């Protein structure tokens, strides 16, 4: 993430000087020491006793040392000892070993400097790679290569026009279309979708698909980033959605056609299906289209037969996670009563908690008998963008009038660590219980499981007369979208809202060696063949012309 804070002139003045080089080397040593310590503490299970630095002023052992960048002093922050050291010694800067943040004495504040930031990020990435191995092949991860533009890229960059990197525009309500507007705003704030469409991966002028929702996304992004701030009416998006859903069967046409209030989550799922269907590289299995590379994860389900102990495991793709707000068996599970407030994490814990199936619900494929069984869900592969739905609307019977809305507040955090809900973590904890040890398979650094909230879709009001609004984040600022009205908001307001859907993006995206997608390979092979065919035709034409010429010459 880019920090907009003012840069420190005292550090910038030292650019290119020997003093800064020395400080950068010290900085590198401190950060490496800290990362090594954190990762080895977890990966080695029981940690060996390691000595820690003590405060140069009060002598207390430091769990979070601040280190002077000019000498070997270490000290504590909360008691102000490191501050006192800088003041007395006249040394300029110190670093927080835990976060890598730099404090400048003259600015009397924490400061941002590009060269230190680069060192920190590359050390963090290296540590992430070093402490992760693939479970099956025991291989280490691919080394991260930063993108350095070659002469072709530089040429293309020189020719391109710079646009503002944020676009904010309200969307007009086209007759109870707040469900659509809110979901579209969450798409617009999605960094993966934004990068795809703004880098011209699907150009609506070059696309030949009929009723193409991908083209509608491309047009929407162009409108939002056009620099115009007047509210925009997504009419063509809506009509394409109608046409695309009516052509895919009568059941789904009921879903979106007409001017009725719709469910935002249903629209979200149908929009994803339509974008997937019209995107490049779209396939039935292990699809690499933009929708699947963004939202697709996999859910692991284990059913254990209580008769013979046989475990039946399956993995299914998942595009989002729908969570129950209220437990079915209150007080029964894990002793948590209904007095406890609902949080996203408590909902996830319930979601991944073993569930006992009735005696007649499961027939074991191994012992062939019906028996009680326990079923447990976990997340096998985490997607780059995690989307949650809180099931606020209950339909106990098919009769529409019996539907009710659960108004209960669900607390959700701005950052989320998904480690405990993964299949790996579940296996570790159940193996730990069996063997009586805490020695578990090391699941890699925490940075692999960290997510940041970037959008929330809220539902206000009753089930049949409600209104959808949306919050989205740009860097560290929150904005609220109520159809055509866009207002600057705060993190506090966003987190206090009645969330219906929450969207989180992975803080450190996975990477692998670049492979040319098969559809591009196929297209290039086709173009090559086409060229050869044309060449062949030209040769034939030339040969014919030569024959004609020869004949003409001969006849003279």
């Amino acid at each position, binding site marked *: 993430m880019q920090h907009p804070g003012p840069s420190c002139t005292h550090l910038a003045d030292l650019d290119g000087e020997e003093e800064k080089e020395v400080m950068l080397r010290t900085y590198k040593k401190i950060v490496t020491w800290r990362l090594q310590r954190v990762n080895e*503490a977890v990966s080695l299970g029981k940690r060996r006793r390691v000595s*820690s630095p003590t405060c140069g002023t009060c002598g207390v052992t430091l769990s979070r040392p601040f280190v002077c960048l000019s000498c070997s002093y270490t000290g504590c922050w909360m008691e102000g000892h490191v*501050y006192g050291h800088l003041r007395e010694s006249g040394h300029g800067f110190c670093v927080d070993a835990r976060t890598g943040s730099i404090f400048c004495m003259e600015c*009397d*504040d924490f400061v941002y400097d590009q060269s230190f930031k680069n060192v920190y990020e590359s050390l963090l990435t290296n540590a992430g790679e070093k402490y992760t191995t693939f479970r099956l092949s025991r291989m280490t991860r691919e080394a991260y290569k930063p993108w350095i533009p070659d002469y072709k890229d530089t040429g293309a960059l020189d020719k391109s026009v710079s646009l503002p990197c944020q676009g904010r525009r309200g969307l007009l309500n086209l007759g109870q279309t707040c469900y659509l507007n809110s979901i579209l705003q969450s798409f617009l704030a999605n960094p993966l979708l934004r990068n795809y469409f703004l880098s011209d991966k699907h150009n609506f002028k070059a696309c030949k698909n009929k009723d193409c929702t991908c083209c509608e996304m491309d047009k929407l992004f162009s409108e939002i980033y056009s620099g115009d701030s007047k509210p925009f009416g997504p009419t063509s998006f809506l009509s394409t959605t109608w046409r695309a859903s009516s052509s895919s069967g009568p059941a789904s046409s009921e879903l979106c056609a007409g001017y009725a209030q719709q469910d935002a989550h249903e629209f979200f799922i149908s929009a994803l299906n339509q974008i997937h269907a019209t995107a490049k590289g779209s396939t039935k299995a292990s699809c690499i289209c933009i929708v699947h590379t963004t939202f697709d994860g996999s859910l692991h389900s284990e059913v254990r037969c209580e008769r013979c102990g046989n475990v039946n495991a399956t993995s299914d793709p998942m595009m989002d996670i729908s969570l129950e707000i209220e437990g079915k068996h209150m007080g029964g599970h894990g002793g948590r009563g209904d007095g406890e407030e609902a949080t996203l994490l408590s909902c996830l814990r319930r979601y991944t908690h073993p569930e006992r199936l009735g005696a007649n619900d499961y027939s074991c494929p191994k012992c062939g008998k019906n028996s009680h069984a326990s079923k447990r869900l976990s997340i096998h592969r985490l997607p780059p963008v995690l989307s949650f739905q809180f099931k606020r609307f209950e339909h106990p019977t098919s009769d529409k009038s019996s539907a009710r809305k659960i108004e209960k507040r669900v*607390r959700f955090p701005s950052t989320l660590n998904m480690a405990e809900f993964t299949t790996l973590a579940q296996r570790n904890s159940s193996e730990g219980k069996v063997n009586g040890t805490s020695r578990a398979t090391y699941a890699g650094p925490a940075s692999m499981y960290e997510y940041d909230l970037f959008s929330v879709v809220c539902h206000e009001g009753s089930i049949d007369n409600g209104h959808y609004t949306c919050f989205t984040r740009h860097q*560290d600022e929150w904005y609220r979208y109520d159809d055509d009205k866009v207002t600057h908001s*705060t993190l*506090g307001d966003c987190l206090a809202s009645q969330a219906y859907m929450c969207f989180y993006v992975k803080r450190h995206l996975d990477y692998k060696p670049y492979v040319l997608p098969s559809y591009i390979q196929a297209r290039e092979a086709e173009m090559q063949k086409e060229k050869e065919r044309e060449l062949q035709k030209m040769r034939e034409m030339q040969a014919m012309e030569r024959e004609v010429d020869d004949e003409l010459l001969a006849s003279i």
Partner: protein
Amino acid sequence: MPSRNDPANSALYTQLHRRMVESGEWDRLSTIFSQRLTETGWVDDVHHRSKEIARSAGSEPGKTVRQIMTDVQEYAEGSVPASVRQGLMALIRQYLDSQIDK
């Protein structure tokens, strides 16, 4: 409650503190503590307040991290949920009891 600044306690405190940090117990407890504070919304609440303090102060000359910390410290310490506080105290007590015989 005995103060750690009391000279009679400070030597014991320093020693126990070192033992906790060097055995990794300190890091383990801080991880649990910060997870609980995140789940109960305390971290986001303090983040939100600090940010709004910085915003209302404007950019010229603005507030430094040290000033924001002074402004928010009392509220932050006072708003730690009782259940989290008691849970952590119990864990620390458990650790200390396990250390007494050694």
